[in-house]
């Protein structure tokens, strides 16, 4: 067979699609930037840690115990990761269901962020599970219908699939598969509707997990409303994350962005939405304190930390978003979004780590390997985002079409 004749086009495809048109040597040289070197160093330490965790188990790699079975892999990777990945359903719903078409240019990066966020949250969860090879059991073999875990497991699996399918159009555009692209575009509305239903379910159910721990979770954070807290705050987290991501992308991938889109105008619109969501969230949190009659706890150490969370990370950013949007202060909006993202991480860690087992003698502090694994997953996530954005039409939908016309 003419193996040589086949090899030539294949090499062209690899060079064009994977090495950005560079020779392998030039491509490898182009990777020698401070960013990739730092990412490489983190992975060089982190990947052996991941192998160690799976080889020697949770006891050897973590500070988890029977008293504290959930650590930062649940609190940070899973709970915060899933909340911050909510930009995918928030933006897709706004554009495809509510008809806010002007936000269409930032849907693809939001969906990609969402997909990678969920993917690495699931990988973090896999590391956290004592027997990850048993994952198919609750999904397919032994259903636990009344369990919140059952709902979360199915929802996350289905939504990860939905996000993957939602992200297929840029992949097909990149590969030049026109028929597949046409088919994928036709599924957009259906996938978006399915995605928002699944997100509503599991974003709230992640909070619902803590309904089972009224004696373990500090009374200021425990509330029958906690599923609603998680869902409402996920909308703010998604909007804030899209603002942060768009700012960083437009700085890091200047040559790839669509310069015909006034991103600042879109950021102002997102800030308006985030300000309203955070404003509502603040009052719902206040209702939780009133409902449980927890006012007397606000003067304690935990109470002050609770006030830092709901005033410093909720009410203040709500006001700053509103003021920034009104006065079109895009830089202020971007910093406020970063602050909100931090606030969501603080909230999820408060619920799952800091205020959980607050009165137990055995307090949990993550081991260096737990921190390293989380950091490694984030690094791989960012590197994946960069790899995809550098090749596929994510930040600029007309990029490939335009090249063909030219």
């Amino acid at each position, binding site marked *: 067979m003419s193996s040589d004749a086949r090899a030539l086009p294949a090499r062209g495809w690899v060079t064009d699609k994977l090495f950005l048109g560079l020779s392998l040597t030039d491509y490898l040289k182009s990777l020698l930037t401070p960013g990739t070197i730092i990412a490489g160093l983190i992975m060089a330490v982190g990947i052996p840690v991941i192998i160690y965790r799976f080889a020697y188990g949770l006891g050897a790699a973590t500070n988890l115990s029977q008293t504290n079975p959930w650590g930062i892999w649940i609190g940070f990777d899973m709970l915060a990761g899933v909340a911050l990945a909510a930009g995918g359903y928030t933006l897709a719903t706004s554009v495809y269901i509510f008809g806010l078409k002007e936000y269409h240019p930032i849907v693809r990066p939001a969906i990609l962020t969402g997909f990678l966020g969920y993917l690495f949250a699931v990988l973090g969860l896999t590391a956290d599970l004592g027997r990850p090879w048993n994952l198919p059991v609750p999904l397919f073999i032994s259903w636990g219908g009344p369990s919140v875990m059952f709902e979360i497991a199915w929802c996350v699996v289905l939504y990860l699939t939905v996000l993957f399918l939602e992200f297929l159009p840029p992949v097909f555009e990149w590969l030049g598969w026109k028929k597949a692209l046409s088919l994928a575009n036709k599924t957009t509305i259906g996938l978006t509707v399915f995605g928002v239903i699944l997100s509503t379910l599991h974003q709230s159910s992640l909070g619902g997990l803590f309904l089972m721990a009224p004696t373990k979770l500090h009374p200021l954070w425990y509330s029958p409303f906690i599923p609603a807290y998680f869902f409402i705050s996920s909308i703010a987290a998604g909007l804030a994350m899209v603002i942060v991501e768009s700012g960083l992308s437009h700085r890091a991938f*200047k*040559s790839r962005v669509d*310069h*015909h*889109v*006034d991103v*600042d*105008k879109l950021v102002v619109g997102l800030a*308006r939405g985030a*300000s*309203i969501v955070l*404003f*509502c969230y603040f*009052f719902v949190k*206040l*209702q939780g304190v*009133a*409902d449980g*009659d927890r006012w007397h706890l606000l003067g304690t150490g935990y109470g002050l930390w609770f006030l830092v969370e709901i005033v410093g990370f909720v009410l203040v950013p709500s006001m700053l*978003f*509103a003021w920034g*949007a*009104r*006065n*079109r202060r*895009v830089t202020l909006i971007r910093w406020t979004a970063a602050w909100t993202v931090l606030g969501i991480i603080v909230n999820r860690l408060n619920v799952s780590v800091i205020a959980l087992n607050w009165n137990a003698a055995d307090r949990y502090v993550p081991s260096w390997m737990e921190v390293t694994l989380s950091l490694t997953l984030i690094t791989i996530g960012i590197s994946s985002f960069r790899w995809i954005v550098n090749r596929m039409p994510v930040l600029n939908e007309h990029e490939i079409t*335009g090249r063909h016309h*030219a």
Partner: protein
Amino acid sequence: MIPHDILTLYSAKMLEYGIAILFLLLFIPFWRFSQSTATALATARAAVPARKKAESGWFPVPADRLFHQGHAWARPDSDGLVTVGLDGFAARLVGPLASVALPQVGSKVGQGERAWRLMTDDGQGVDMLAPVDGTIAAINTDLAKDPDATIADPYGKGWLVRVRPDRLRANLTNLLTGQAARRWMDETVAGLQARLSPGLGALAQDGGVPVSGMARVIDAANWHGLARTYLLTSEKEDGRA
């Protein structure tokens, strides 16, 4: 057995109703505050006389600036120096910028002569003309970090240089201000509209401001040439000079 105090429960409920009512009362003004723009910006403009703007269609033409037809502006300041920048049209025409190559402090610039260069992502540059004669007294060093301030705020933070003028009175006679500046800007915009691509036309119908990088929208292949034509720094313009 859990002790049950009906009065405590009642007061807690009253507080919840109170918070709900407070939320509803505050939500309306907060919504109006966060969702509005025009009133706030108008108030801000009124509060800062130096930033008074007389709108000319798409692009503001501040009443306190004098315009060179190469789309640079000049503002004589009380300390005897002249602040110089590029107008909103030039910013949107060329933008987004990778950097702005400014002249060194102490160097000479001449009215109608090339003075600074707008550098774009693709490594090409578009020169612009100085609106006055004089010596560079200061440059806006903040542009090194944020060159796109020239687009976001061309009449404020996006200023370029401060010039110690040599013959300001003579220079001023060649600059446009007030009605003449607005008319000139309107004519420029009308010329641009005639060249518009459908994509930019849709924006105009929306009533929005044209996107950054208009020249690329109009003529992607030769947008630098187009930008230089508008900024009077094309080779043809040089030949005429």
